[in-house]
């Protein structure tokens, strides 16, 4: 239809030609095009409109375009401009280099941060139904504060589907597990096994390389593995149909029915390498128990409104299934729906298997990136303005020759554009080259995907923003020079502009001082965290996980065997090591009205001794007194305070733990120790002497003979559990791992504060070299009058010292405020007032670096003999 068109006067091609081409050519060109189009209509060719367009656009060339015409006042300028631009850049080599270097470094940081942040924000975004998927969370309260729990139990999914059948479209459960996976002679401990409902690959959009999403988990013993694992276990062979064994307490055979893709692009809060059918647990009693929470339940709901409606009905839903239990324990639990998009950044959820990112870190990184760009832009503006004196004559001459102001602005913006283009290209190449170094330094795994269209938009947008920001003002300023005043040799004065330039320098140093001080303070907090006395022994303690039945059946023998070595001081088994897992439960004490929620530790008799925890009142657990009916219990001081009893009253009191069906008697009170991270206040803790629920061994080694001790532990382990490899970590390392995010933040701050101070000094270097040249004569006369080199240097430096002091005045309160907020996430933190001097350090370091830069540059001018410097008029 379009292929048979006639070209009318208003057709865009005609308008285009009329607008852009020289007036004397328009009639002929239009005629040619119309006739061409007519002749195309009569021919039997394909792509007629395309051919026509080709003709139209090929007509737009210098020989036909108006702006290239000699009668246009833009023609010669248009052709010469790029040449002029290059020439100017080369002429002002130092400042161009400083500009390009500044932008390049700034852009490298930005690129890295952009891709990293993009990667973090893209978690879970590949699912088609990402906006419809919700995670079911339980909401509980511990002594007045609400918290979310990530795990639910098996029956929830079915009950939810049944009770909300109109709104919940589908549900999917996933249970993280681990086990020893073996195929022929290959045997590895895998801790990213997921047992999920049959519809897992339909519910989510994890991509299957082989296998059909509908049926891949169809049979109870089917197993889907990742591409990585397929390679690991089968090399190049086709894994489909192969039998693989997963060993937990017993060995279970699985047949591989599919392979899923686990490339870097697939980022999910669910981490798994193997997926089996959840029916695997069908024979276990706990799987059908409402209270055995251990798996994640997801539901799909069409709209947010419907989800909110369901949430309102949750209390009655819970009453229906838990009514009696709630009455008995006196504690309610509610449910809520967490949109899957929020899961990754919601790291406040407890008992959570999901992988989390830290939104706060991302925000800080974004701000740091913007700050660095600002510094680079300020450099450019500053230098451009400093050099505007030099170009005043050029501007004057151009204006006399009739160049309009708008063309001058275009010229100056064009120069900035060239600088930016060069910087973008260099930064792109450099960041790609330095990526491995970046990644290993920040312990990240960032990939750069330049080919994404959004990256294109981002870069284009960034380019435009930088161009406007850095070049518009200097261009407007320079183009405003009046030819008469610049050409007759009078000095141009910039009263107002000096203020702006100084303002920019102050801003740059404010950012630098802020970052340096923040780095120092964050490092101090991390130091504090690392060195704080936690109330237990954390050095030379080996944590070994009690992860298989061979070892579980021989706990006592294993421990006894460990103790035979002189390098092993003490051994204890427990539910969770300090910093690890401490379940919460409600306890009841006859005679105490209120129900208290406490965190729990189940352990053997040696818990306090191995970890060096101090007992304040009462007696420790004794090996001989292990009793399943009447367990010995020790609580911490916080627990005591929460109960509101005196020390004397509490010893010997009966305790029941309804959730665990444990009855016991309090035998002692321990000092408070930090069994969770220093972010949380010490909570009430109940330590129960049991023989069950022990997941970890804590082995205190002789710190002088660590290696021998470890060897002994490993040998003993191999003797008791030949098939399962040992999994161990050191307690102090594991505790420090709790602050992984903060350690990363500290690295980011230290690296970027280095970059920021470097960039700021680059700017100062440019300014000083310029003013040293400007003041050459003045400095020469000063020398004649007897000024020493040192005096001259200090004269020039003084100016900048004032600016840096002003920057410090601005930066210190801002940093104080920021760090105060940052520290708030720690319940135990450094006293910021006691570290006031670190803020000063920030200022002093910046000042020193800046002064050094200035001195080096000024020295060059100061040593020139006055006869040289004042020779020329």
């Amino acid at each position: 239809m379009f292929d048979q068109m006639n070209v009318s006067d208003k057709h865009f091609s005609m308008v285009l030609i009329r607008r852009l081409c020289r007036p004397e050519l328009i009639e002929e060109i239009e005629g040619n095009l119309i006739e061409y189009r007519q002749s195309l209509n009569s021919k039997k060719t394909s792509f007629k409109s395309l051919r026509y367009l080709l003709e139209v656009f090929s007509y737009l060339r210098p020989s036909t375009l108006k702006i290239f015409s000699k009668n246009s006042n833009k023609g010669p300028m248009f052709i010469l401009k790029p040449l002029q631009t290059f020439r100017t850049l080369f002429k002002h080599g130092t400042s161009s280099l400083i500009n390009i270097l500044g932008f390049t470094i700034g852009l490298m940081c930005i690129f890295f941060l952009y891709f990293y942040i993009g990667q973090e924000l893209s978690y879970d975004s590949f699912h088609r139904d990402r906006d419809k998927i919700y995670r079911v969370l339980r909401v509980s309260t511990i002594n007045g504060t609400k918290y979310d729990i990530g795990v639910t139990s098996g029956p929830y999914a079915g009950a939810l589907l049944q009770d909300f059948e109109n709104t919940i479209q589908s549900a999917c459960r996933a249970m993280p597990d681990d086990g020893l996976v073996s195929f022929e002679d290959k045997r590895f401990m895998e801790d990213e096994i997921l047992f999920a409902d049959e519809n897992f690959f339909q519910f989510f959009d994890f991509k299957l390389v082989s296998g059909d999403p509908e049926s891949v988990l169809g049979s109870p013993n089917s197993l889907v593995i990742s591409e990585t694992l397929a390679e690991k276990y089968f090399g190049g062979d086709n894994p489909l149909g192969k039998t693989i064994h997963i060993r937990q307490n017993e060995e279970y055979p699985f047949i591989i029915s599919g392979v899923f893709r686990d490339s870097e692009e697939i980022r999910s809060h669910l981490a798994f390498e193997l997926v089996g059918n959840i029916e695997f647990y069908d024979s276990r009693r706990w799987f059908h128990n409402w209270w055995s929470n251990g798996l994640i339940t997801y539901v799909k709901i069409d709209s947010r409104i419907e989800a909110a409606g369901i949430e309102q009905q949750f209390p009655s839903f819970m009453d229906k299934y838990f009514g009696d239990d709630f009455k008995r324990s006196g504690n309610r639990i509610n449910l809520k729906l967490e949109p899957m998009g929020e899961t990754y950044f919601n790291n406040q959820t407890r008992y959570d298997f999901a992988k989390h990112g830290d939104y706060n870190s991302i925000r800080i990184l974004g701000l740091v990136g913007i700050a660095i760009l600002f510094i680079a832009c300020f450099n450019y503006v500053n230098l451009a303005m400093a050099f505007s004196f030099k170009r005043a004559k050029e501007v004057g001459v151009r204006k006399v020759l009739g160049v309009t102001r708008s063309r001058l602005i275009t010229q100056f913006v064009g120069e900035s554009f060239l600088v930016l283009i060069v910087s973008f290209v260099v930064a792109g190449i450099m960041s790609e080259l330095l990526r491995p170094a970046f990644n290993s330094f920040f312990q990240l795994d960032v990939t750069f995907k330049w080919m994404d269209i959004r990256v294109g938009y981002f870069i284009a947008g960034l380019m435009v923003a930088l161009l406007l920001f850095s070049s518009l003002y200097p261009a407007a300023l320079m183009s405003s020079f009046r030819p008469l005043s610049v050409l007759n040799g009078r000095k141009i004065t910039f009263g107002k502009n000096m203020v702006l330039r100084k303002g920019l320098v102050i801003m740059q140093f404010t950012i630098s001082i802020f970052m340096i001080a923040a780095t120092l303070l964050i490092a101090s907090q991390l130091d504090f965290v690392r060195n704080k006395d936690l109330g237990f022994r954390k050095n030379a303690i080996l944590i070994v996980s009690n992860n298989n039945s061979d070892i579980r059946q021989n706990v006592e023998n294993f421990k006894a065997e460990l103790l035979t070595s002189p390098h092993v001081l003490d051994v204890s088994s427990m539910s969770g090591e300090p910093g690890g897992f401490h379940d919460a439960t409600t306890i009841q004490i006859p005679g105490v009205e209120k129900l208290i929620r406490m965190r729990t530790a189940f352990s053997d008799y040696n818990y306090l001794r191995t970890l060096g925890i101090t007992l304040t009142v009462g007696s420790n657990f004794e090996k001989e007194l292990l009793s399943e009916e009447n367990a010995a219990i020790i609580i911490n001081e916080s627990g005591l305070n929460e109960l509101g009893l005196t020390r004397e009253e509490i010893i010997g009191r009966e305790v029941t733990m309804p959730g665990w069906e444990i009855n016991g008697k309090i035998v002692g009170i321990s000092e408070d120790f930090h069994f969770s991270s220093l972010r949380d206040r010490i909570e009430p803790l109940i330590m129960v002497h049991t023989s069950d629920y022990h997941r970890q061994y804590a082995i205190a080694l002789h710190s002088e003979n660590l290696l021998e001790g470890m060897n002994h532990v490993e040998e003993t382990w191999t003797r008791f559990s030949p098939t399962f490899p040992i999994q161990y970590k050191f307690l102090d390392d594991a505790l420090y791992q709790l602050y992984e995010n903060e350690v990363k933040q500290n690295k980011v701050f230290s690296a970027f504060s280095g970059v920021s101070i470097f960039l700021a000094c680059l700017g100062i270097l440019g300014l000083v070299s310029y003013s040293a040249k400007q003041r050459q004569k003045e400095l020469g006369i000063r020398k004649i009058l007897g000024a020493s080199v040192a005096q001259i240097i200090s004269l020039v430096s003084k100016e900048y010292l004032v600016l840096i002091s002003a920057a410090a005045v601005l930066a210190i309160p801002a940093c104080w405020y920021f760090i105060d907020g940052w520290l708030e996430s720690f319940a135990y933190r450094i006293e910021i007032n006691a570290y006031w001097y670190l803020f000063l350090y920030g200022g002093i370091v910046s000042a020193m670096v800046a002064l050094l830069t200035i001195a080096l540059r000024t020295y060059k001018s100061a040593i020139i003999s006055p006869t040289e410097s004042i020779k020329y008029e």
Partner: protein
Amino acid sequence: MSFVHNSYKIETNNMKGTNLGEFEELVLLVVLILQEQAYVLNIKDEIYSQVKRSITMGALHPTLTRLEKKGYLDSELSGATKERGGRRKRIYQLTAAGKNALIEVREMRAGLWKQIPEFALKLVHV
């Protein structure tokens, strides 16, 4: 201001050489063949049908302009037709200088051809 531009114009005119490029020669020959029908669209079609070279009108424009500048072509606007939307077309015509240039090229070539030893052009079968 006009001073600046005039000097530029003169300079560029002088800068154009007078020798004939291969494509220019082709265009001149086609214009001669077409006679009164020598306008861009026809030149384009003729070049395609004679030597199978597909050229856009836009690409022809600078060549034609250049030949005019060198003084080998002359042109005038005429012949508005309906299928051209009432627009006139630019008909090109060879000037005496243009014809001379073509003849010169042909003679120069012929002279060169004559000097080639006969055996040099024979295909050698080894």
